[in-house]
C-alpha cells in the first residue's frame, strides 16, 4: 500500500488528521484549477471550499481501485465548476478580477509585473473552448497526468491528448497575436 493509499484509507475511516493531510496536499492545486476555470478570486475561494466540504461528506463512498484519489477530487471540482457555470448562465458571465494572490509577493514591482503576465495567460485560457480549458487547467495548472485527467473528466486518454494539443495550438496563436 502506498503512503497516499494509507492516508486515504485512514481518511475514509474518519481520521481527521489524514483528511487534513489530503487537504494540505491538494488544496493549492484545486484552488489553481478552479481559479483557471472561473477567473475570480472570491468565486475560486468559495468553490474550492465547497469541493473539500463535498469531499469530506462523500469520502466514505470513495473506492481506491475505481479512481485515483486526485482524479476523484478533481471530478468533484469539475462538477462544482459545471454547476457554477450553469447557475451563472442564468445571471451572466463571471467577471475576471485582478486581485490575484501570487505565490511570491515579496518584491512589489515584480509582483505587479507577474500579475500582468498571469492575467494575460488567464485571458488566453478563458478564450479556449470549455473542453480545452478544462484539460489545460488540469494539466498545466494542476499537473495531473493525461490518465488522471481522463479519469477525472470521464474521457479517454486519446481525447484528452487531442484536446491538449488543440488547446496549446490555440494558445500559441493567441500569444503570437499578442506580440
Amino acid at each position, binding site marked *: 500500500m502506498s503512503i497516499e493509499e494509507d492516508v486515504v484509507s485512514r481518511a475514509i475511516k474518519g481520521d481527521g488528521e489524514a483528511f487534513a493531510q489530503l487537504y494540505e496536499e491538494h*488544496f493549492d492545486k484545486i*484552488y489553481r484549477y478552479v481559479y483557471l476555470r472561473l477567473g475570480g478570486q472570491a468565486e475560486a475561494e468559495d468553490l474550492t471550499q465547497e469541493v473539500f*466540504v463535498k469531499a*469530506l461528506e462523500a469520502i466514505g463512498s470513495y473506492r481506491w481501485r475505481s479512481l485515483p484519489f486526485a482524479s476523484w477530487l478533481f471530478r468533484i471540482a469539475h462538477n462544482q465548476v459545471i454547476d457554477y457555470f450553469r447557475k451563472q448562465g442564468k445571471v451572466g458571465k463571471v467577471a475576471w478580477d485582478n486581485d490575484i*494572490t501570487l*505565490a511570491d509577493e515579496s518584491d512589489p514591482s515584480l509582483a505587479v509585473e507577474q500579475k500582468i503576465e498571469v492575467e494575460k495567460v488567464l485571458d488566453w485560457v478563458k478564450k479556449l473552448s470549455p473542453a480545452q480549458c478544462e484539460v489545460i487547467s488540469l494539466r498545466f495548472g494542476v499537473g495531473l497526468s493525461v490518465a488522471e485527467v481522463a479519469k477525472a473528466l470521464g474521457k479517454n486518454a486519446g481525447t484528452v491528448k487531442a484536446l*491538449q*494539443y488543440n488547446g*496549446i495550438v490555440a494558445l500559441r496563436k493567441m*500569444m503570437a497575436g499578442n506580440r
Partner: protein
Amino acid sequence: MTQKIEDILDNCLERMFKGESVEDCVKTYPEQALELEPLLKASFVVIQESSAIQPSPEFKARGRSQLQGILYAKLAKAERARIPIWHRRWAVAMTTVLVIVLAGVGIAAASTNALPDEPLYPAKLATEQARLTLAFSGMGKAELHIQFAERRATEIAEMALQGRSDKIFVLTEQVTNHLGGVPMAEKAVKIEEGGQKALAPPPPVPAPAPSDEAEDYGEGRGGYAVELKAMLCDSRARSLNILQTTLAETPENLRPPLEQAIKDVTEDYDRIILILESGSG
C-alpha cells in the same frame, strides 16, 4: 510506426514537468522540431504563470478550520449513531425521570421552611401528603402525622408574629387533623401486628415484658402505643413551648387568636394522648 504529434507533445510535456528544458525535449524529435518548439514554449509560459496562482494563507487557514468543524460534527454524529436507538431512548427517558425527580427533590427541600402564602407552601403540603401516602407502616404514618402537626404549630407561631390571625385558625384545624390521624395509624399498626402474628410460627419462648420491648412494634403488646404516646408528649411540649414563647412576644391586640389556638392545640394533644392510653391500657 510514426507517433502522432499529440503523443509526442504529451511525452515532451511530461519530461518538462520533470524538469527537462524545451530544447532537450525538441532534440529528441528533430523531424517535428519546427512544430513542436513553439508549442512547448507556449506550454511553458502557461505552466509557469499558472503556478504563480496561490490561495491566500488566511483563506487556506479559514477553510481548514471550517472543515475541522464539519469533521468533528461528523464524528460526533457517527459516535451517536453507534449507540443503539433503544439505548438512546432509554437514556433520554431516564434523564427525563432524573430531571423530574431532582427538580421535585429540589422543590421539596426548598419548600421545607415555606410559610402559608409563600409560593412554595403548596409544594410543602404536597410533599407531606406524598410522604404520608408512601409511608410503609402504620407506625411510620403516625410518626409523620405527629411531625406535621408540630410543623403547623410552628407556623401558627410565625403567623401570629406577622399578625395573620386568618391563617392561625386554618393552621389550628390542620393540627387537629394531623393529630386525629395518629389513632387511625395506630389501628393500622394493630392490624399489621395481627397479620404478622398469624403468618409467623409460634414463638418458642414466652414474649418478654412490654416494658423491655418499647422499640419492637410488631412483637410487644401495646409497645407501639407507648412509643406513640411518648412521641406525642414530646411533640406537645415542643409545640406549646413555641406557641407560649410567641404569645409572650406578640402585641396585646394580636394575642386572642393565638391564645385560642394554644387552647385548641393543647386540647387536641391531650385528647389524642388519652385515646392512645385508653386503647393500650
